[in-house]
């Protein structure tokens, strides 16, 4: 088994959520520099999405972000190199989800319902897409990144803005004021989630 196969096997297990923390960090570090293994990982994920019998929710809401924020404030920091790798993977996952949404498989080609015209909380509904990961997993990974370094907040919010722009169903949140009150000093950061429509 050569070095690529070693990492591909890790990627395969990662898709099945079967890696421990150290293996995950090792894999993410490698994926950041190896296009070959990144390609295998993308294909493995695509395969899982295509074959999975149960749809995975991929709805990004204010509530989810609040849970991420809450988790991010609880635990100690992880090494910066791990954060960089995890951030790269998370961005890739989000981009992939956007791509799934914009270029859905034929069996998922039902029209996506447009949101109501009135303003409301930002909500990205990818209900017809078999998303790449569950809400809980997304929250776990994202909070891990933010827990390690608050500077990633800005990057994450930019990703969300890009997602909103790509899907075209983002809506401005008029509840940001109340959200700010609920989250105290972090509320100001959540305001950054608002996207120019």
């Amino acid at each position, binding site marked *: 088994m050569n070095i690529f*196969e070693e990492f*591909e*096997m890790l990627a*395969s*297990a990662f*898709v*099945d959520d*079967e890696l421990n923390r150290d293996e995950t960090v090792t894999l993410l570090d490698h994926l950041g520099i190896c296009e070959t293994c990144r390609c*295998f990982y*993308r*294909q*493995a994920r*695509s*395969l*899982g999405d*295509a*074959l*999975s*019998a*149960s749809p995975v929710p991929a709805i990004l809401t204010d509530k989810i972000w609040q849970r991420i924020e809450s988790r991010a404030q609880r635990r100690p920091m992880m090494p910066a190199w791990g954060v960089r790798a995890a951030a790269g993977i998370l961005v890739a996952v989000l*981009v*992939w989800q*956007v*791509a*799934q949404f914009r*270029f859905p*498989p034929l069996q998922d080609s039902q029209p996506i319902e447009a949101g109501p015209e009135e303003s409301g909380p930002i909500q990205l509904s990818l209900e017809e897409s078999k998303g790449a990961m569950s809400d809980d997993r997304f929250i776990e990974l994202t909070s891990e990144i933010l827990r390690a370094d608050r500077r990633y907040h800005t990057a994450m919010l930019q990703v969300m803005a890009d997602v909103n722009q790509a899907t075209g169903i983002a809506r401005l949140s008029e509840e940001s004021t109340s959200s700010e009150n609920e989250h105290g000093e972090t509320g100001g950061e959540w305001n950054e989630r608002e996207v120019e429509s």
Partner: protein
Amino acid sequence: MLETLPVALAQAFRLAVFEQRSYKEIGDLQGWPLSRVRMDVYRARQKVIAVLGPALSEKQP
């Protein structure tokens, strides 16, 4: 597709991907160590990707 795989690989793939069982469950069911489960799921996935690769690549951004 799975019929073309060796029986053990097909079984590992079916349990892990279609039935979404944990590697530990698969190991317990099959009497395999975790290292073998991981390897067999990978080998099966590798072969399926080799066949479906172009179709999967079309889905990439």
